[in-house]
């Protein structure tokens, strides 16, 4: 059974009905990893928030979203909130703002767990520690008792991943999870994400503007431009033989490693001169 089906999804904002995304359709099978590529303002984050039912009040949503063949568009807020963090969870770009600065991180992970299971508060600590260990954190006892500001950016993002995965969700949505991190930390976080997603068999919608990062996590990819999907396929296919001129531009700019130093780099407008 297909895990997530999105059909003709569109989102408009405000009284003037400004279009954010239009006619977006894709599907994610269980344990599949789908990359969503696009620039700032292309509608990536709006798509993610629409799936999670987290769009602001002034958003008008059209189209269909089905999770495990059940439409979530008809769900009331209460049923939706039981779905969030359980069947599907999310990892945000900025781990500092995604965590509550006034609460010890161990307790935050425990709350994510207790919200959706019948765990007793006592036995939850063991699960929390185990989860923190699985995202590659050392000294989990000390980390669990720390406040977010006492941790490094990489540690915070691992805590967020632990929170997102502690209820063994079917789908994890990652919105630019490593953009705020150093390359070395990014590499470690990506490795951890790959490991835990694999171990849990969870599917993933991985949103990024960085093709290289997407290629390290995902097997399928869709490319978004101005709120629409312009290309979709396997990572290998799209990245080696892009069809849409915009995708060609994206792929060319991402291959910095293949350029001789000092030479002029190809840019997106070399390939695609639409609205950018």
């Amino acid at each position, binding site marked *: 059974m297909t895990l997530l089906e999105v059909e003709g999804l569109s989102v408009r904002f405000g009284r003037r009905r400004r279009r954010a995304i239009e006619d977006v359709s894709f599907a994610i099978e269980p344990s599949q990893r789908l990359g969503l590529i696009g620039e700032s303002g292309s509608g990536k984050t709006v798509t993610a928030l629409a799936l999670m039912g987290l769009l602001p009040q002034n958003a008008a949503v059209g189209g269909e979203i089905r999770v495990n063949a059940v439409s979530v568009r008809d769900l009331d807020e209460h049923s939706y909130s039981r779905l969030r963090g359980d069947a599907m969870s999310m990892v945000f770009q900025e781990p500092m703002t995604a965590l509550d600065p006034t609460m010890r991180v161990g307790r935050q992970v425990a709350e994510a767990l207790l919200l959706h299971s019948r765990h007793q508060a006592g036995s939850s600590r063991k699960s929390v520690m185990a989860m923190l260990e699985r995202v590659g954190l050392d000294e989990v006892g000390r980390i669990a008792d720390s406040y977010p500001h006492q941790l490094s950016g990489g540690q915070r993002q691992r805590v967020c991943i632990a929170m997102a995965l502690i209820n063994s969700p079917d789908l994890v949505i990652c919105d630019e999870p490593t953009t705020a991190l150093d390359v070395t930390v990014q590499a470690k976080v*990506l490795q951890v994400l790959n490991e835990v997603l694999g171990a849990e068999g969870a599917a993933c919608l991985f949103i990024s*503007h960085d*093709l290289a990062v997407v290629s*390290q996590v995902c097997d399928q990819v869709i490319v978004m431009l101005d709120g629409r999907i312009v290309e979709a396929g396997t990572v290998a296919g799209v*990245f080696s033989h892009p069809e849409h001129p915009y995708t060609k531009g994206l792929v060319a700019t991402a291959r910095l490693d293949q350029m001789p130093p000092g030479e002029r*780099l190809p840019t*997106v407008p070399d390939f695609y001169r639409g609205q950018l």
Partner: protein
Amino acid sequence: MSILRAEAVSRCFGAFPALRGIDLEVGLGQRLGIVGESGAGKTTLIKLLAGLDQPDSGQVWFDQKIVSGRPERDLGFLRSSLQIVFQDPRSSLNPRMRVGSIITEPLRSKRVRRELNDIDQRQRLGEVLKMVDLPADSADRYPHEFSGGQRQRIAIARALAPKPQVLIADEPVSSLDVSVRAQVINLLADLVEREGLTLLFVSHDLMVVRHLCDSVIVMRAGEIVERGQSAEVFEHPQTDYTKALWAAVPRIRV
């Protein structure tokens, strides 16, 4: 002939040693990459070189003139000849100023004007806007009307306005989309070439540094752990730290 020199420079913030005895010499026309993780001391180092902060010990020289320990009013020579482009153009441009006055700000300082023989502000504004490929009518608009890549161009235009000899770029493309990154790197490379600038380029992205810089220093915990020509350092890294940094650069895996 060196234009910037740091001798045994150290700087502590409370008990935390951000820099421990850095020695560095930058030649005229050199394009030096400064790489390392967050907290390695990269930004502290360039603040000291730019005279925006004072070392606890050691000395900084610019063009045979001492920078460290001097009061701001004596630093006019440095303010006109050394400029900085910051990481995030969303915070480095005053949201309540028009682009025109943002760019000409370096030209309005009395200390800088003394060094520049009263440059014509209007004319220079037009010149630098053209140099960074922004339309001339940008001057009357506000920063929030521009995209991230365009805002970084505005920041670059501001840095170029006083005709500096040295341009320091502190992670200038880290907050930009990968697809916009190439355009800003091309622009920087062009400008450095055409204006004969000396470039200090701070980044945690080694691929960009390899592309843009002829030489590189690798920093870790307030010290320089490796230095040399870019090609040499990246193809034959000597320390495990540099190897790890190089290995961490994300590459397309198909």
